[in-house]
Structure formats: C-alpha cells, structure tokens
C-alpha cells in the first residue's frame, strides 16, 4: 500500500486528558482528503499530532517514514506544511516577510522568486499588500496569507485547519477555488472542516471523526448521500 499519509491507532494527550482514542486513516498522494467532525471531536488534534505538536501514541507514516519521535521542525522539512487553526499570522512581520519565513524549512532555497510569483498569482491581493504588517490584514486576507505561507515551503502535503472559520461565504468560496488549483498543481491536501457542505464539495475522500474516533469513511460523493451525515452535518 503506497499511501502518502498513514495513521494507525493514533492516540493523543493533553496532559492526562486523552483527546484521540485510536484514530485510523490513510490518504493517497495527489488527493484532497477531509476530516469532518463537530467541535471537540479531535480534528485539530489530529493535525497537531501529524505536525508533532502534541504528545501521541500509535504510528504516523509519511511516504513510508515514521513521524513519531521527530520534532515539528523536522516534519516540516519532509514537506508537510501546516496552516494552523487561527491562521498563525506573524502580525508584526510584513506580508512579504511572512511569506519569506514560510520558505525557511525548505532545504532548497533556490527559486524563491518563482514561489513568490506563484502565490501572488493565486492571491493577487498579497502582492498589493506585501509591505503591510500581517496584523493589518482582514480575517480572510490572513487566511489567504496562511495558505500562501504554507505553500512557500513547496510542500507535498498541506494540512489545513478550518480555513473557512469566521469568514464571509464569498471569501470562503474564493479560498476553496484556489485550494482546488493548488491541488491540481500537485499538492496533496488534508483538510479539517466544520463546514461539511464545502468540504464534501472539495474533497475526494472523507473521514468522519467523533469524540476522538473515526466513525465513518468513504468517497465524498457516497458520503454526501449518507443519511447520518446529511442530518448531522449538512442540515437537510
């Protein structure tokens, strides 16, 4: 099995509190996978476990290599970019510096200009604002900056934590449209979302997380018709 990301029996702990109780899933290279779930189901924790930001048990493999025991910084170097919950903007740094920092974990620093061009092509607004401090951007702009910063790593896998949170529907649609382009240009995406309708449209494969366990999985076109999902997450 040549999964890009493979998670087996993953448990995660905050102090003594267990947040994940044996999560299993895998995703193929090139796809967009989404993890749906309510508040507190463990979606963010799952991403944090992959980025080694939380204590875990179980195994996580990226491209066959185990991630457990690695530091966050080393996981980044493998090509896993994480656009975190709350966007993680460097508010004191300019937009351009935010992007520059995003390329830090890359072994190969060449071609930085091309990468700037690439993210400016996705998000033209960032080019206009590149001398502005990150903290002066609106929520939607900061979310775009967060995705753009993650892309500066030239990642193979992009972890996205609720990119739709708190944003106007139009902005969200714009961001999701760009995510599709990003994916078509070769970046695999693992998306965590509360907004099930949006996530189901974008993703090709879906996992449903409830109180720290995967309770349901399948291709998104199948799950979209699933009664439980429809009632609980789509609301019709």
């Amino acid at each position: 099995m040549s999964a890009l990301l493979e998670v087996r029996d993953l448990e995660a702990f905050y102090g003594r509190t267990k947040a994940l109780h044996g999560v299993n899933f895998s995703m193929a290279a090139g796809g967009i996978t989404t993890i749906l779930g309510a508040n507190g189901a463990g979606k963010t924790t799952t991403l944090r476990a992959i980025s080694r930001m939380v204590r875990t048990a179980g195994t996580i493999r990226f491209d066959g290599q185990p991630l457990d025991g690695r530091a966050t910084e080393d996981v980044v170097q493998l090509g896993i970019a994480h656009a975190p919950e709350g966007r993680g903007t460097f508010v004191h740094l300019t937009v351009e510096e935010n992007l520059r920092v995003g390329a830090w974990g890359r072994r190969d620093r060449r071609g930085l200009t091309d990468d700037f061009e690439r993210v400016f092509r996705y998000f033209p607004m960032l080019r206009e604002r590149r001398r502005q401090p990150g903290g002066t951007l609106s929520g939607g702009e900061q979310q775009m900056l967060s995705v753009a910063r993650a892309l500066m790593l030239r990642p193979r896998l992009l972890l996205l934590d609720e990119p739709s949170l708190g944003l106007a529907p139009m902005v969200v649609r714009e961001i999701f449209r760009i995510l599709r382009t990003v994916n078509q240009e070769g970046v695999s995406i693992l998306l965590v979302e509360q907004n099930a309708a949006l996530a189901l449209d974008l993703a090709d494969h879906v996992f449903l997380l409830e109180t720290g366990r995967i309770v349901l999985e399948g291709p998104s076109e199948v799950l979209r018709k699933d009664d439980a999902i429809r009632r609980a997450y789509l609301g019709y």
Partner: protein
Amino acid sequence: MDIFVQQVVSGLATGGIYASLALALVMIYQATDVVSFTQGEMAMFSTYICWTMLNAGVPYWIAFVATLAISFVGGVVIERVIIRPVERAPILTIVIVTLGLLVIFNSLAGWIWTYVQKPFPSPFPSQPFKIGNVVFGAHDIGAIAITLVVLASIYVFFRFTPLGLAMRAAAHNPVSSRLVGIRVGWMLALGWGLAALFGAVAGMMVAPNLTLEPNMMGGVQIYAFAAATLGGFTSPGGAVLGGFIVGVVENLVGTYVHFIGTELKFTVALVMIIVVLLVKPTGLFGTSVVKRV
C-alpha cells in the same frame, strides 16, 4: 553653552553604553519574556576576559573582537544549559535564575580577579580635542562611534538576513515559527548570545571611565533598565533611543541641578523608571502585549 554641548556629548557617550546594555535586556525580554538581571554582570565578566587578554599582550582590537566572540558563545551556552531547563517554568522562576546568575558571575569574578580595581585601557587617544571652544574626550566620541556601528550592524542583521528574520519570527510567534520549521529554541539561544555580545561592548566601553571591578556594572544596569523602560521593553529601537536620552538627562541633571550633583545621580534613573511606569507603562515605543489566556 559650551559646557552644555560638552555635557550633551559626554551624555551621549554614556548613553550609548546604556543603549547597548538596554538592547541586551530587550533581546532577552523578547526571546524569553523575562527581564534579565544578569546582563550587567555578564558584561562585567566579558570585560575581565578582555582585560586578561590585554594583560597577556594581545593587541586591543584583536582582544576586543575575541571578547565579542567568546561572549556570544558564552551567552548561547548559558541559554542552552541554564535557561533552557526552566524555559517553560513560571516567569518568576526564570527571573530568579537570572538573579542567581548575577550572584554567580559577581562572585566568580571576585574569586578569579579579586575585588581590587583595575585600570582598563581605552583604544582611543587620551588627548581630548577641541572644536571651537568645546572640548571633546576622544574616548567619548569613540564610544559613541562604536555603539553606532554595533547598532547599525544589528539593524542590518535583523532587517535584511534570513536568520535575522527567523529570530524575529521566533520571538513574536513561536508556535507558527515551529510550523514553518524554525528551531525556536536555537533562535532564543542566539538571542542570548547577541545580548551577551551587546553587554560586552557596553562593558569594554564603560570600563575606562569606571575602572574595572566586579561591581562595575551595577549602576550601569540600573540605567539600562531605565533606558529600556523609557523606550519600551518591546522595542529595540526605543531602548536604544532611551539609552541616549537617559545618558544625556543624567549628565545634564548632574551638571545643572546642584543639589543632585554626582551623589544623587542614580535617583534620576529610578525617578525616570517610576515616571514612565506611571505615565506610559509601555514606554515611548513599546506596544502592550495582548495574550489570550
């Protein structure tokens, strides 16, 4: 008027020294979130290292650069070995650790080099020079120049190099920094290294005026606190400006307000700290840090 200009210039000279040490305090504050009480003593220790080399016959500028290098490495090691284990401890714990370091460096210096005052040379000519009617001390002008060179290079480093950018990022947002692959712990250690380097500059520039002894930096450290408070602990540029302001004010008050003279000069620094804390606690250029709890 001539006396006034003269006092301003010599105030700028000591101000530059306060600025260097204040910058050290700000570096530590941004990296570790605490006010460090040990920077002055580390600076004094660095100065002794320089003195030892000079005594062994090493030319001044070689000893100067070597001292900067040793201080930088020493600062990094101190962070890695002593501060790192308490990094996540409550702020008070780290403050106490820096107080402990203060005592250790002070006694260590006394133990190694004794408490006897030692003259420390200035690299600049001892002959003062005159412009018009105003007499300038060559050491004063030299100290100002060196401070400015150090400050300019550090500005260039932080503003224009990738490593400088990574250090700024790590200080402002450690979590996001780790997520882009910055080794935050090492950035903090580099911050301590740079702070030790600034301290060494301050120590070596002030020693010719004060003569070298283990308690040499006690007063300077208090002025540096005043400078950092005035400029804002969150603003490196502010701390530098604060240093120059404190230096000049200290000198002018000592000269023109007769009941203060040289004896009560320290009080000026403390009064400045208190006034700033009462009127604008963030300092002239500081920003208040809002933390989500």
